[in-house]
């Protein structure tokens, strides 16, 4: 009995960790955008859903696996994010929060309803050949789709880390995030860097969408849930911190899976919001955030 229970618990933790990697990648996009330009992307879940739909369409109409269409989707999202920042968001940087909120809310409404108009309200999923494959490690089972998605998410996060620490553009973006006035003074093109950053944030969430569709079917109504989930993850991890977003993703992934096992499945997000309230009150900078806001 207890051995069974421990095994179930371990299995739930494994599944939670794997899904949590993808959550982390999604939240990374939100965190990068906020960390650099202090804009909260209220359209984040909507962007995620659009990424999921694109991957679904690639699979349904062109028979391309989401893992293969991922680079294309990420590139498209990068371009769209870059243009969106340049055209709409740029004038709103530094404006009052309620104006930024309204702008991104309008973008969110447009994205989710465009998805609804094009793909309809039904839930859409992909049935891949690897759907029922799994790897067994001792008594634990790793679903192939989840494992592949998690590995891809880790690989993308690593690439981002290399970008931000090793390339000139990446370092410039971090400089602009630390002190945008100083960055301007030393001659960095901050406007272009901001657009680049929004592109990278969008690419993260697009890629996360392509991975998520292999785990869960998509419907337009998921968008708000993902926006809230991304908020929870980045606040828990530390808004603006990259490793914090990944860690927060794992934490929320595991806590959802374990809460789903121990309590009613419908109570699992109550647990996440409870955690969010605690972190906001006790450590508003997040688990890995820097000292002061």
């Amino acid at each position, binding site marked *: 009995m207890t051995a069974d229970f421990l095994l179930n618990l371990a299995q739930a933790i494994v599944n939670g960790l794997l899904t949590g990697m993808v959550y982390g990648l999604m939240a990374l996009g939100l965190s990068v955008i906020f960390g650099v330009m202090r804009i909260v992307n209220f359209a984040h879940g909507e962007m995620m859903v659009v990424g999921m739909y694109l991957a679904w369409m690639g699979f349904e109409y062109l028979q391309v696996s989401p893992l293969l269409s991922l680079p294309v989707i990420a590139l498209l999202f990068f371009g769209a994010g870059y243009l969106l920042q340049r055209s709409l968001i740029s004038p709103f940087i530094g404006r009052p929060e309620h104006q930024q909120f309204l*702008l991104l809310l309008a973008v*969110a409404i447009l994205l989710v309803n465009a998805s609804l108009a094009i793909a309809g309200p039904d839930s859409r999923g992909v049935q891949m050949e690897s759907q029922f494959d799994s790897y067994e490690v001792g008594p634990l089972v790793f679903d192939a789709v989840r494992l592949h998605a998690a590995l891809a998410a880790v690989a993308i996060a690593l690439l981002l880390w290399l970008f931000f620490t090793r390339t000139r553009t990446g370092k410039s973006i971090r400089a602009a995030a630390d002190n945008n006035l100083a960055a301007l003074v030393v001659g960095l093109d901050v406007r272009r860097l901001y657009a680049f950053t929004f592109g990278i944030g969008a690419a993260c969430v697009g890629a996360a969408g392509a991975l998520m569709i292999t785990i869960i079917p998509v419907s337009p109504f998921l968008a708000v849930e993902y926006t809230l989930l991304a908020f929870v993850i980045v606040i828990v991890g530390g808004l603006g911190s990259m490793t914090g977003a990944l860690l927060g993703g794992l934490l929320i992934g595991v806590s959802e899976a374990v809460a789903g096992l121990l309590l009613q499945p419908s109570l699992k997000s*109550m647990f996440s919001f409870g955690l969010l309230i605690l972190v*906001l*009150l006790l450590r508003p900078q997040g688990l890995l955030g820097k000292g002061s806001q």
Partner: protein
Amino acid sequence: MSFVRRLAGNAPPRILWSLAILLALLLVAPAVLGKYWLSVLILILYFAFVGQAWNIMMGFAGQLSLGHALYAGLGGYIAAGLYFHYGIGPWAGLFAGVAVAVLAGAIVGYLGFRFSLAGVYFALLTIAFAEFTRLAFDHWQWAGGSGGLFLKVEHATDIVNLRGGPVLFYYVILALAAGAFILCRALLRSRLGQYWLAIREDAEAAQAVGVPVLRCKMIAIVISAALTALAGVWNAFYYNNLFPETAFAMGRSIEITLAPIIGGLGTLFGPIVGAVVLTGLGEAFTDLGDVLRIPGIKQIFYGLALLVIVMYRPAGVWPWLANKLGLTERQS
């Protein structure tokens, strides 16, 4: 009369006359308007009222709440639950509903302001409390759980139990909206109102010159929660049903914020103008959507309209309109 004179203060007579004429027109409107137009007017007044309530917190005191569905939902659920289970009418039940919402507002406010969460962080805290409550109500059987709570639809007018047709609800929401307008005017002209504006502009400077910042913020959230809870009670008895998925939804909270933001944050006429613009657009796009028959098309037009307004009138429609009409509102 001295209260009225004080309230009117230095407002230009043109505005006072226009308001008097508007009120007279609204009072006779049900006699003239058909069912459809009356329902549109009811929606406008509802959004003007909750907008006014939200505006006290964000427009006056500068605290961004994106979780106001919490107070509307609590007010509505408590009053409807008391009526449903024990036959306690809403005129008594609203006190319980408002009390619970005020308590919730005081908790959210105290925790948030005590730990000096500001801006986005405070907004996320309000969202978290609303979502947490939504999930709790999903599992609370007294309130009907996720299956919802339903009140019996009755057509005979029964003012004691707030049962009846649209005309009854029209006059109730008109009284609420007019009352909130007068209350906000009085608040803005009071010392408290001046403190709020000081906090909104620069909380640290306000603290430094001796404004009791924490207490003022608490008063703002408590008044705002109480008024929003009244809107929730009205809403529950007007629609006769309540679901956690809609009563506490993020979408409901967002809906409450739109009229004041679009109309003009921190102004008295902003929430009213915003409610007219948004309800008008919503109805027009619904008709358009019926013609085009594409799912989501109504929302797409709505999103585009919001985008255009926030890009070209980021401070809201009313300040611009007031300027065009040669009126200037002083308080912001």
